[in-house]
């Protein structure tokens, strides 16, 4: 085991990597010196510190440790799916050093003590900073407002009801208004609940053929349109999670142009897969929101490129085999996402849709900016949370062989290029 304190950290020189820090616009081959848990220097021709370690990284890319702004943890309450320890191991192998945890656990993170607990549990791992969202409503039940002020004071990074949409317009209005007073954003799962209820796939030819209860794609745009209007009314900041349709993205694009407090993220399945992935009732591709048409997938790619989308999150939702080995409509929605965040996003770089710095920005400075946090940067004097990856190294995503407990990837069998070869948390090597 590595020691926990910074004094135990060896000084390290990472030499010859292409160093990319989207926040500062840095993109050059350089050496990075890590001392005392901090980035001591970024320059060419640095020499290794006495007694320190040198990591030769020619051909690799060094960037800030990834910031995953949306992930569900099995803990507390559903440890059979995943524990924090297991999630931290998977995160380290995925280059993720900071993770924003959704609050719809058991119990829900609707009490300041639970916010502090989760933050402390993250610190205990020594490899992963966990910044929990506080619940918008008590128990994430969608009725009574949670103590947003106290949650924020305890360190809640923002507010959300997790995978549940904040349904009533009045409740959303109050949440946006009230959260604004404490500088917190409200993260919405954008699906109009009465249209989405009971649905398992996107409405259309495929769902009709399979006889599955379906959700019209417009359920997303309807919720987005309403919440944009409420953001305009309240001056609050609404953030739409895992946006997946062209019409919703058009609305968000227009709201941003208007200067409203509106941001959004998406997740790799929505720009890499379409509804065909559910094929003959493949429950590992059952997600919430459901996978969309090819036209919507392309619109998500375009929005990654044009800046409409602020961040790519893993949207990690651990499930075990029993959650998934059920008839499709009864199976639990959600996919494991940590390990595939970087490689699937890099596929858009390899495909020419976005640049490498843009891809990294979407997983570092982008989410940090949405949440107003000084994270996801690689600068002299900053904390050495770093991700070193080889952008072309090929590997195959295989359920059952991924680090951590959650193996429910919708990308099973997929060959990808881009592999994490080293992760540093506060200067300490935690992977590779």
């Amino acid at each position: 085991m590595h020691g926990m304190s910074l004094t135990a950290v060896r000084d390290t020189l990472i030499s010859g990597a292409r160093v990319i820090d989207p926040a500062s616009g840095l993109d050059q081959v350089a050496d990075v010196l890590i001392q005392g848990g901090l980035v001591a220097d970024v320059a060419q021709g640095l020499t290794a510190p006495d007694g320190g370690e040198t990591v030769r990284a020619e051909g690799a890319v060094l960037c800030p440790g990834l910031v995953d702004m949306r992930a569900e943890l099995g803990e507390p309450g559903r440890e059979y799916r995943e524990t924090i320890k297991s999630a931290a191991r998977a995160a380290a192998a995925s280059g993720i050093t900071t993770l924003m945890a959704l609050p719809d656990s058991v119990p829900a993170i609707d009490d300041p003590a639970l916010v502090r607990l989760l933050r402390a549990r993250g610190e205990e791992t020594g490899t992963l900073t966990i910044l929990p969202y506080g619940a918008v409503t008590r128990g994430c039940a969608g009725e009574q407002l949670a103590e947003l002020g106290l949650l924020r004071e305890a360190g809640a990074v923002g507010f959300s009801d997790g995978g549940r949409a904040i349904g009533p317009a009045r409740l959303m209005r109050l949440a946006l208004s009230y959260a604004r007073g404490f500088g917190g954003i409200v993260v919405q799962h954008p699906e109009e609940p009465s249209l989405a209820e009971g649905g398992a796939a996107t409405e259309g030819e495929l769902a009709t053929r399979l006889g599955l209860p379906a959700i019209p794609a417009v359920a997303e745009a309807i919720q987005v349109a309403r919440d944009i209007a409420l953001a305009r009314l309240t001056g609050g900041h609404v953030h739409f999670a895992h946006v997946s349709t062209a019409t919703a993205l058009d609305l968000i694009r227009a709201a941003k142009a208007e200067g409203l407090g509106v941001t959004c993220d998406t997740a790799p399945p929505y720009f890499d897969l379409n509804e065909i992935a559910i094929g003959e009732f493949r429950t590992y591709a059952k997600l919430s929101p459901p996978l969309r048409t090819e036209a919507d997938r392309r619109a998500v790619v375009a929005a990654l490129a044009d800046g409409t989308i602020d961040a790519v999150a893993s949207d990690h939702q651990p499930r075990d085999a029993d959650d998934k080995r059920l008839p499709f409509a009864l199976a639990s929605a959600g996919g494991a996402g940590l390990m595939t965040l970087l490689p699937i996003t890099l596929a858009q770089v390899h495909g020419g849709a976005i640049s490498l710095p843009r891809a990294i920005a979407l997983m570092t400075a982008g989410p940090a900016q949405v949440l107003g946090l000084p994270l996801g940067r690689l600068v002299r004097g900053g904390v050495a949370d770093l991700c070193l990856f080889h952008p072309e190294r090929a590997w195959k995503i295989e359920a059952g062989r991924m680090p951590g407990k959650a193996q429910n990837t919708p990308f099973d069998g997929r060959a990808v290029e881009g592999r994490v070869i080293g992760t540093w948390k506060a200067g300490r090597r935690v992977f590779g």
Partner: protein
Amino acid sequence: MRHLLAIEGLSPTTIGELLNLAESYVLLNRSGKTQRDVLRGRTLINLFFEDSTRTRTSFELAGKRLGADVINMSVSTSSVKKGETLLDTASTLNAMQCDLLVVRHDQSGAPNLLAQKVEAAVINAGDGTHEHPTQALLDALTIRRHRGKLEGLVIAICGDVGHSRVARSNIHLLNAMGCTVRVVGPPTLMPAAVEELGVTVFHDMMAGLADADVIMMLRLQKERMTRNLIPSSREYFRFFGLDSAKLAAARADALVMHPGPMNRGVEIDSAVADDPSHSVIREQVEMGVAVRMAVLDRLSRPAVMPERLIRPAAGSRR
């Protein structure tokens, strides 16, 4: 063919072979003879997660006429809710060394899931709103016996298409066999993009029935009213119930079909349902047994000689 999970994906040749084999079983059944050697020593389990007396009985009779040992297992949804999963059931069935497994389930895709885990040949006896392949085969056999062919016929499928596995299987089968398929019903009971399955959609029943050779009525469940998909059964009957006035729009010799059980006075008027010059509803039941015999026969043998399917040899087969 290892399982029969759906009509979608079956070739016209396979469908034709199954219908021919079923035809031979119609003749056998009418002769009063049996062929108990076909499935002798085989175990057929009827695994019904949803109540259905008629389909279960039909499979039971089909299995017994071919000599199988038939066991009926009704799994109430409550015991499923207690935690026994479909896959627990599959492992139980494997231990029992079941050869043929007939599955009815209220969830689309449940038979596909079972088929991945059981060693038996799986026959879908209706899954959720997905498919009901033997119903489509028996409907096709009924039509073919009356019209001598399927190709070129105009078929109107009427009613709650959205929630109907019977409609989906029939659409796939009739399209594969060269029919012109129409679906008729209110927009709230039409599945999205149903025209992509190769049908023309009608919301006016008279227009939808015009010159139709066959009218297939679907059962309307009471639940559709409580969920506001339609306002009332009387309004439904007024616009989409089959009565003699609407029937007059179809061809004079049009066949009227219904998969049963019927809601008389909701989707079909008794006068039409019981009119022997149009209704073939009773005959559908008879064809059901023959079609299921054909399916069980076919699936019980891994390799099939095509000519055997067309003309079953008299006497012993193995």
